């Protein structure tokens, strides 16, 4: 349904007073395919380009090169209004993404107003219907966001995204600002709505346990590139890229006695303005080899998905998989 090909986005960054500006490759050659009904989880550390990718998918910033097509139509040819009918966002912070001076009914009705749909009464009725659908009783319709809790605000943001009946919802860390009990409610709601409205989600999160729960496919990003992509169950059962394995190892599940994992990633996230040569992950990689610092790995695309690592050469003759050294410490003494 959505095809992203060779997508890049660079930003110019001031390096300092009187120094030349430098280029930051926030998204650096991303290929993705999102099918109807998928929930594509995008994971990675901060600065890996996942939010920049989301903003390009929403048409909020144009790509530097490459293209995004939705049902074969190039995104850059679609007008903002046309695009907004098909794709809608839900952002991380429900405190800053809602206008504090408007009632929540008018916040939810605003997209209808912008698109000139229906009369004022019809728009209000549709907004209230949608609010009830996301679990906010009609008595809240006249409240302003300030009178609502974080979870209720996120419900308003979801109602606003869905009132246009879009096909795709781009969720950028939708539960990161919420308490765990509220997070569970919002995740349940998103999964219900996906079923009821036939939605496709792009779900960006740094919380791998949440992604495992909601996503059908997962793309792992590192320094602007997708380093691994696979079906969720495969990725969690059999992670291939060393970075994916390190990410999975660092998930702290509520199981006492397992201790704290040693990810082997070292301290430093590399400077994205000056990315390391070759495979950008090689300085932190516990399995790096001689050619990792010299050659950019060619992504291997097979039935399992995609992996960009010299351990999985795109040409034949696959190497046996070395085991990853992860030690665990027990914190109880």
């Amino acid at each position, binding site marked *: 349904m959505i095809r992203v090909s060779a997508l890049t986005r660079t930003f110019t960054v001031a390096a300092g007073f009187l120094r030349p500006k430098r280029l930051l490759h926030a998204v650096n050659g991303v290929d993705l395919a999102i099918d109807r009904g998928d929930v594509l989880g995008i994971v990675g550390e901060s600065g890996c380009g996942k939010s920049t990718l989301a903003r390009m998918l929403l048409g909020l910033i144009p790509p530097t090169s490459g293209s995004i097509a939705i049902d074969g139509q190039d995104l850059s040819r679609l007008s903002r209004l046309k695009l907004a009918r098909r794709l809608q966002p839900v952002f991380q912070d429900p405190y800053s993404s809602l206008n504090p001076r408007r009632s929540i009914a008018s916040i939810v009705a605003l997209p209808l107003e912008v698109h000139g749909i229906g009369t004022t009464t019809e728009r209000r009725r549709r907004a209230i219907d949608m609010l009830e659908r996301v679990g906010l009783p009609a008595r809240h319709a006249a409240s302003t966001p300030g009178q609502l809790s974080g979870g209720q605000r996120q419900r308003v943001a979801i109602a606003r995204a869905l009132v246009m009946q879009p096909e795709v919802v781009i969720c950028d860390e939708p539960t990161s600002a919420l*308490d765990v009990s509220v997070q569970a409610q919002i995740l349940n709601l998103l999964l219900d709505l996906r079923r009821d409205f036939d939605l496709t989600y792009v779900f960006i999160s740094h919380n791998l346990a949440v992604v495992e729960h909601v996503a059908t496919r997962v793309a792992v990003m590192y320094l602007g590139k997708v380093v691994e992509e696979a079906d969720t169950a495969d990725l969690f059962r059999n992670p291939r890229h060393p970075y994916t394995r390190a990410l999975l190892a660092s998930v702290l*599940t*509520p199981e006492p006695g397992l201790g704290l994992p040693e990810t082997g990633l070292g*301290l430093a996230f590399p400077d994205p303005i000056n990315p390391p040569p070759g495979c950008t992950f090689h300085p932190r990689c516990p399995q790096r080899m001689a050619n990792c610092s010299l050659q950019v790995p060619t992504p291997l695309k097979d039935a399992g998905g995609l992996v960009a690592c010299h351990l999985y050469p795109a040409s034949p003759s696959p190497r046996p998989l070395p085991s990853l050294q992860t030690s665990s*410490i027990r*914190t*109880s003494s």
Partner: protein
Amino acid sequence: MRPLPPGPPGTPPRAAPAAADVVLDVDGLDVDIATGQGTLHAVRDLTFQARRGETLCIVGESGCGKSMTSLAIMGLLPRAARRRARRLAFLGEDLAAATERRVNALRGSRMAMIFQEPMTALNPAYTIGNQLMEPYLHHRGGHADEARTRAIDLLEKVGIASAAQRLGQYPHQLSGGLRQRVMIAMALMCGPELLIADEPSTALDVTIQAQILRLLAQLQRELGIAMVLITHDLGVVARIADRVAVMYAGEIVEHGAASEIFAMPHHPYTRGLLDCIPVPGRTAPGGRLGTIAGVVPSLVGELKGCAFRDRCRHAQPACAQTIPVLGAPPGQRWRCILEALPATVAAEPA
């Protein structure tokens, strides 16, 4: 980071602590905040101990009073807040009766604190070296060279390479993970016996979070300090805590060894929290997560009975009365009228 030797398998049950092991003794701590609507009871009748060589995790959702608790212990409460306690003792010394001067001498020296957001806790206008050396020179006196040597030692200990060069850098030149390491080194400068860490890894990426927590666990064990770690993340609690106190609406609702609490939670709120989190390999992908209906009650004004009863599926009329604290050996305590939770805890339909 150096790998740590694994702990002994099958940790033996902890013997009853000797009184000398108790570093922080809190009994009946209350924090009241005067607001326009009335008195807000942010912390209510809190009782716990932090022992040498042990990590106590205080866990709860936003607004449960966990941060107020840490500020109350350190004597850093905002002006509008008032602290009362039957006993608040640090190494046997009554903090409630201590003079301002005495508390200042202890704070930052023998009891230290690590905050959540290292960027706001570090002063952007001073170098790392300045900020590391200042508490040492203030509390210990001595020569600047001595402080500098200790700063370099500690930066190396917390895993910062080329420590001597780092001393001249400013906080903005460091990444979030490095800043939090500097905060940890700073807290250790004077060799504290109590370390309070308020959400020390929340602002960091997951990979860095694991490293910082490993570092804290390692230092805590190596230096034999008592650590109180405040967090909302049950995953963090499970992996680092020896003992756990679960807070809800200003009260500790359940308290006990980490292994007991996770294996058999007795309070409905603890049970509910554990059911809320997706766990890879345990919760069914795409399945319904457990939820806790309703919202946290207002803590303004007179409070009576169980604060959780409006959201609890096991609520009974007796819940509006004074709630007993029940216990099970060896050390689990919970504030509920139920001896044991009914077995059916499957997620409710929406």
